[in-house]
């Protein structure tokens, strides 16, 4: 019982699932909306959501879902028609930011009230995973048509554990328990308030002073101190976040594999884990996050060796390399990493000129290829590694995550892995991809970091799965 108050950095922007691509929105959606298929607590398995069960045709092109007997928060029944509508909407609506990811859907039809049949245009193994994306949540067709997307984005009619009671823009979202939720008896809280407290210090102090039950985004530097407080629990949940150093392969000497390898060796990731994450992170050895599907734990990790790096650079004719290091302003961790990396590179004879610009400009410059190296991070949206692999190695429209990385063999393998139905073979393909990426140094993997949240002692079961979903239906406030 009780209302859980959670402090976070920023307020949501909308509740219309197809109109946002930001975690701040998705993390609230997942407890307001429900999806056909969910990702489990460990972040490694799909489990039934609004779809009780499903079958896949032998050619892998036709999916048939049996829709559960559930209700929307306004009490109206949730049908296969709503599910079909939602899927087509995210594919077709012009305001959808996700249409590309669902272009693979050919038709989605409600064969009857409880049966949804989806036909794909072509084979796609990750398809089921994409249905777990919060943005593909099931919305009420009737509701949307009645009140329109603006009102829906403000106060949605949904079928999740909680409903939006009030949204005080910029301040808080007040959720209350949804009595129509099909698992309503699982929900122990009366409600949840997501409160935006932008300043990290203030957010922590709020929990320390007992004015918030919990806060997310605990800065690395505060973990040890908060752990000491007997009133608090610091929860460290595995995440899919991976921080990496982007390298612009199109710039001069960076096109050479040996130079990139030297760069990899010149960076002491351990020092970064120590100084920047205060030991909370773990060394990254693959672009696939640790613990995620098909993660290759034995992937190679180049050891820190500035001298060797220097030699390699000399051999590659790239001594006295000068790099333009782009930093996102306002991101403390980024800035700290940059300061460290700069000094490390110096030991290998590489001069890194730090260039700090405001976040959206940083993004612009990265896209324009106007950088040499820059730190970035990625968190998975879906369970399947295909999405990230395609973006990072698959040579699609974004120049391999803006690195201009080129390797035809990798490209082919990415496409093939998407179509491989046999999980064993598929896993092997992803292991190969991880090895090849490491060898090529498409970018430099730095570290994996967990989700760190803090809560008062009387809060139980407050945790996230690696994709970021909070399981507030399980959270207890004593």
């Amino acid at each position, binding site marked *: 019982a009780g209302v859980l108050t959670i402090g976070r950095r920023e307020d949501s922007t909308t509740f219309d699932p197809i109109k946002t691509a930001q975690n701040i929105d998705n993390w609230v959606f997942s407890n307001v909306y429900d999806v056909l298929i969910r990702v489990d607590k460990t972040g490694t398995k799909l489990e039934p959501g609004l779809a009780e069960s499903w079958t896949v045709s032998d050619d892998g092109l036709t999916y048939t879902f049996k829709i559960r007997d559930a209700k929307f928060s306004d009490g109206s029944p949730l049908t296969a028609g709503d599910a079909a509508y939602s899927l087509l909407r995210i594919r077709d609506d012009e305001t959808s930011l996700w249409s590309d990811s669902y272009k693979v859907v050919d038709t989605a039809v409600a064969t009857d009230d409880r049966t949804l049949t989806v036909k794909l245009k072509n084979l796609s193994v990750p398809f089921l995973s994409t249905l777990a994306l919060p943005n593909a949540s099931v919305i009420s067709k009737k509701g949307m048509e009645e009140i329109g997307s603006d009102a829906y984005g403000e106060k949605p009619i949904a079928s999740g554990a909680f409903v939006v009671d009030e949204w005080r823009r910029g301040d808080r979202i007040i959720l209350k328990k949804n009595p129509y939720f099909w698992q309503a008896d699982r929900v122990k809280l009366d409600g949840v308030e997501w409160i935006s407290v932008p*300043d990290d210090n203030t957010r922590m102090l709020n929990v320390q002073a007992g004015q918030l039950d919990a806060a997310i985004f605990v800065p690395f530097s*505060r973990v040890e101190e908060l752990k000491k407080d007997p009133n608090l629990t610091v929860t460290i949940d595995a995440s899919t976040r991976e921080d990496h150093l982007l390298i612009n392969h199109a710039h001069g000497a960076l096109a050479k594999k040996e130079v990139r390898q030297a760069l990899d060796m010149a960076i002491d990731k351990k020092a970064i884990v120590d*100084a920047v994450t205060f030991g909370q992170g773990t060394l990254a050895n693959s672009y696939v996050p640790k613990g995620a599907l098909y993660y290759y734990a034995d992937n190679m990790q180049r050891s820190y060796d500035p001298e060797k790096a220097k030699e390699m650079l000399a051999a590659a004719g790239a001594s006295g390399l000068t790099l333009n290091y782009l930093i996102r302003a306002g991101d*403390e961790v980024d*800035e700290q990493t940059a*300061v460290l990396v700069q000094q490390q590179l110096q030991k290998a004879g590489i001069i890194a000129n730090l260039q*700090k*610009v*405001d976040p959206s400009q940083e993004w612009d410059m990265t896209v324009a290829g106007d950088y040499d190296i820059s730190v970035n991070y990625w968190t998975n949206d879906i369970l399947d590694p295909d999405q990230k692999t395609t973006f990072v190695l698959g040579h699609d429209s974004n120049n391999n995550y803006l690195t201009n990385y080129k390797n035809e063999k990798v490209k082919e393998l990415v496409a093939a892995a998407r179509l491989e139905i046999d999980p064993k073979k598929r896993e092997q393909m992803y292991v190969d991809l991880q090895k090849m990426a490491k060898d090529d140094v498409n970018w430099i993997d730095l570290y994996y970091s967990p989700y760190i949240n803090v809560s008062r002692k009387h809060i139980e079961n407050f945790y996230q799965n690696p994709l970021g979903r909070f399981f507030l239906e399980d959270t207890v406030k004593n």
Partner: protein
Amino acid sequence: MSVQAIEPSPFSWRRFFGKRLALAIGGGILLFFLLLAIGAPLIAPYDPILQNADVRLQSPCLLHPFGTDNFGRDILSRVIWGTRIDLQIAVIGVLFPFLIGTAVGTIAGFFGGAVDALFMRLVDIILAFPFLVLMLSIIAILGPGLGSFYIAMALVGWVSYARLIRAQMLTLKNADYAIAAVSLGFSRFRIMFRHLLPNAVAGSIVFSMSDATLVLLSGAAVSYLGLGVQPPLAEWGVMVAEGQSFITTAWWITLFPGLSIVCLAFGFSMLGDGLAELLGVHE
């Protein structure tokens, strides 16, 4: 005219400094910082950007009197080197607005009429223009760093000086000696800049001292938003802003640069007070 005996009075420090006390304190503080800035390479015990993983987050001790930050950099050295940047911020951040504002105010006040109306509308616009939008936009356009900051300060800051000088000019241009100058056939340029401006500028000089504090604080605010000087440069505002994460665990990271800002601001204020008394300016 009146003939009165003046008896010499015994020496007293109070009388010696008299009204100059504020001036002396303010000047002393600024001189101290100036020397720090000039002598930074000699005085600072460590390289301000040198990281040392062994002494991270060291509280003040003999080796590091002000402690170290999360990279093991020596705070004292960073504070000393920061003096260079912060003095520069205060001086340049005030100098350009001062020059621009003085020129505009002189011309607007002296010529009046359409020129004045035009400039004053501009002043109205800038006064009503949200400073932050301008500051953040300029920084976003030109990139964070001191250059953008100075430009933004100059674009906004001149207004105060222009208003001060203009108001002075409006009264001074009707002063008898200004009219006398006209009647003597002096050129407008000569009257404006040789006769009126020197008499009009005292208030602005005094104001510039408190303005320097405002500029320092604006710089700190910009640092808080993460748009301060480029790392790893040591600048007080940035140091305070970055040290915020350690405020409950490593107070020394923020305290010393914070105190330096306060002290420098105090120096400017005192100097301003002293100048006000010396130049006979009333706030």
